[in-house]
């Protein structure tokens, strides 16, 4: 088993390294799908350059990363510029490790839960019970998915700062599943500081560790203290609070309408100016509005809740990139046992593949050939996002179905009549 891991780690690293050093990279690294104004390495370099020249970085409109990210990148670029590729690959490998650890913790938990609830299950639920070997395979597939997902490879090879975010996210999820309240709070604070939207992971964290009040207090304390420290340090580094408007203000008000795989840019180029604020609020709330209903439904499975939230924020955030998509998708093999119940795998698969191929084509037609327009590209990104939403709803529904079957048996009968479960 270990050997297999070593092999895929090596292959994953090689894939990244190969892409980084091939001529393809120049075509990939500034793709709008991969590099957004928030995570583009070009902008990081510009920020570091301006900072080095003594020009206030957050006063201008180029750099929107956090001050700590700027400081770290500055260190990387100044002192480690020859090893940048290696560092980014290493970060991705560490992320993988965290994901694997998180996944295996989760499978152990699943098995424990299954053991506890076994008595309550229906008599004919044996067939769909979890098996340890299967789950172990799932964990392995998580690693493979992250290492070989084209989305994460491209994102890493383009040196986007999503690589940092993903590492922090993986660490947060691991801490959550392990029940390390303090570390969970701290790492959640870090990742929230870095890209704001993951703040919604606070809810699954509390659900996970909510059984003891002490850990909840711990989470909040460590979260708030870390946030405070981070802001304090940031204002010291950047010499003021201007970074808040340049980073979080930028994320929330989305002034840069460069096309990306999200939904904001197209709407806001066409918006009447006096409705702008209203729609901004609507769009941003969209990313968080599902937290409460999902948390109610999935209160017993915070990990699945986290996945759903990660997927939704990857769709509804103002500057999404493929790196975010690749991250949550690589977690999907954990729920290998739900695949049986997925109804739209074919549709979603086709949509994802076709949009991933069509997106760059439409973009090229629009920008370089001038034979298409923004509508074409937007249509593709819309389909891509729809596919993601389908995927998440399908998965959640599969979970619900499986729970039903566990408790009610695999035969679906209502009043003696065969019935179907439908999501309505």
């Amino acid at each position, binding site marked *: 088993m270990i050997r297999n891991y070593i092999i895929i780690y090596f292959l994953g690293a090689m894939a990244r390294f190969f892409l980084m050093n091939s001529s393809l990279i120049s075509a990939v690294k*500034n793709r*709008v799908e991969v*590099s957004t104004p928030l995570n583009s390495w*070009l*902008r990081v*370099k*510009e920020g*570091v*350059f*301006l900072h080095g*020249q003594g*020009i206030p970085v957050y*006063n*201008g*409109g*180029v750099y929107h990363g956090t001050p700590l990210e700027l400081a770290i990148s500055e260190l990387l670029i100044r002192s480690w510029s020859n090893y940048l590729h290696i560092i980014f690959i290493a970060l991705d490998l560490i992320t993988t490790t965290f994901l694997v650890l998180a996944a295996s913790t989760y499978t152990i938990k699943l098995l424990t839960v299954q053991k506890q609830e076994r008595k309550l299950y229906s008599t004919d639920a044996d067939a769909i019970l979890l098996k340890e070997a299967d789950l172990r395979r799932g964990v392995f597939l998580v690693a493979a998915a992250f290492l070989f997902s084209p989305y994460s490879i491209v994102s890493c090879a383009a040196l986007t700062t999503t690589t940092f975010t993903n590492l922090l996210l993986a660490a947060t999820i691991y801490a959550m599943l392990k029940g390390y309240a303090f570390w969970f709070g701290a790492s959640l604070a870090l990742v929230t500081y870095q890209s704001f939207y993951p703040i919604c992971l606070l809810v699954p964290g509390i659900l996970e560790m909510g059984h003891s009040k002490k850990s909840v207090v711990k989470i909040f304390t460590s979260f708030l203290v870390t946030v405070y420290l981070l802001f304090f340090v940031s204002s010291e580094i950047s010499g003021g609070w201007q970074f808040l408007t340049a980073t979080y203000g930028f994320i929330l008000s989305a*002034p*840069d*309408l*460069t*096309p990306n795989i999200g939904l904001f*840019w197209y709407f*806001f*180029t*066409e*918006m009447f*100016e006096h409705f702008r604020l209203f729609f901004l609020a609507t769009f941003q709330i969209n990313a968080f509005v599902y937290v409460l209903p999902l948390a109610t439904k999935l209160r017993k499975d915070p990990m699945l809740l986290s996945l759903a939230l990660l997927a939704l924020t990857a769709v509804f955030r103002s500057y999404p990139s493929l790196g975010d998509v690749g991250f949550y998708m690589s977690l999907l093999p954990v729920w290998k046992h739900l695949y049986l119940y997925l109804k739209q795998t074919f549709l979603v698969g086709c949509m994802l593949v076709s949009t991933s191929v069509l997106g760059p084509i439409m973009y090229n037609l*629009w*920008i*370089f050939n*001038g034979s298409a*327009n*923004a509508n074409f590209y937007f249509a593709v990104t819309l389909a891509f996002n729809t596919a993601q939403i389908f995927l998440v709803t399908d998965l959640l529904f599969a979970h619900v179905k499986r729970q039903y079957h566990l408790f009610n048996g695999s035969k679906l009968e209502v009043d003696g009549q065969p019935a179907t479960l439908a999501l309505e």
Partner: protein
Amino acid sequence: MNVIGIRMRPETLFYFNIIFVVNCFQLIIGSVEDYNNAFSEELLIRPLPSGHVYSHFEFTTLWTNKRIKESILNYKDFDFVHYDLFPRAFGEIVERYHVRELHLSLTQGLWRYHKWGYPVVEAPPGAQLWTWKDLVNALSGLFCASLNFIDSTNTVSPELSFRPLGITNPSYSQNSSLMRYTALPRENVCTENLTPWKKLLPCDTKSGLSTLLHPTPLYSAYYHSLSLHMRPICEDKDCRTPVLELVQSLSLVQKLFNEMDGRQDWTLRSLFSAPLISVCPLSKISKIYVDITENENLEIFKLDPLPPNVETQGEGTAKRSLAIYDNLMLVKDGPFNLQARYPNKHIYGIIPVPSLQVSRFITGHGLERGSIRSITVKLVNSCPNQLTVTYLEVLPWYLRLFFHTSHFLLPESSMYVSKLVTARDRERGWLYEVVVTLPPHSTTEMQLEFGRALLKWLEYPPDANHGFYIPSALTMKKLESKSFLGMKIIDKLKSKFLKKKSKEEESKEELSQKPSEDPKDKDKDEDRGGGEENKKGITLRKRVKEVHSIKDLAIYSLAV
């Protein structure tokens, strides 16, 4: 192309107090204000080796009285009451918006340059912006130009480029925060701008050289530039009589080939579709100069009538000869149609290149953001000396520049960034000012990579098929010796009429004593009254702006 330079002064209570005191003082002395008005009109015609004919009109109004003297010497706001030759419509603007120096030019075609002014006192930025905006709107009204498109996103205050050309308080010479520069590359220049410009002349178009300014030949020219420059200057060395100078000038480059015989013949009638029939009765000087350098014996072309007076100045490559016609004498005998006749057909030879050439173009393709596209600037120094130039880019915010990619293909030590203002979306544009040292006989290339922002539907300029225009870059060079003198200035001759030496020039002298890497004194495209200073042994700076072949870049819009 439009440019406005200006210096603003803040309104303060202190200020009014001073003015009040001055008024009392005048009451006590109680003398009649000493009026001093002068107007001159001049035209320089220069046949160019490329077969074009370059003509440059210059109308100068000088004005001084006690109040103006007071304002200039004490660096106070102008307060005009009784206007004579100076146009009131313009004077009111200057007075209302606390303008110290103003340069505006409206140009169509390549080959453009602009001069600038400087600020004096710090002022609160918010209020200042508004003042600026109102001033711009007032000027729009005066010149029927769409200067109202000027806003905070295209207004900048460069650090080194554009130093005040008039008298400035030396202690403020380092402060650029009150100077404003802006450019509108899209502006079309047409008759509607010419008419109000002509109205500012004391003789309007009723008589004098301005009667030659008919719209049709003007707007069919290859290059056309209308400008207005106001600055305070000194008539004498000790600056006992400071005056306010208003120069209205118009430059034209035309090509008048008779296709059939291929001669470069020109006459006043063929250039301006009318001969000269009168002089402005208010002008002290009304002259036409023809550049006859390399044609002193009138062999290449013959002038009819023969010039009554020829003046030669300079030596070597800087030698210039001008044929001078006094219009007053000539128009007495009816319409005066100056003619140049070439016995031979025009031969297109190799034209000696100017010492400094700059060209700018866009590389890359498509409408991609990111690093694909870049502005490439080529600076060619073809003279045997090392040149230090200031390069200024003022770009709109919707280009996202990546300065870390900008590089000169040269050792880094030969350039330094003197001012860099990063753009903020929809709020302010880019300002990039660098000082570059160009080795002799070399070509320096600079690249600035940029991406493009997607604009909101209302932010696209009208006529989207034009794409976007971005303003010209500016390269400024102060030339040390006469040998670089690229162009003969008519003011040279005017020095008899007027000897000008501004305090500001003195402040530049002081600056030049500083170590050589200090590039703080730059650009001045015309040197005035230089000859006088040379005699006194003062190092004279010939500030001649090189011809810029900087092209306007059109960037095509992202079609949504």
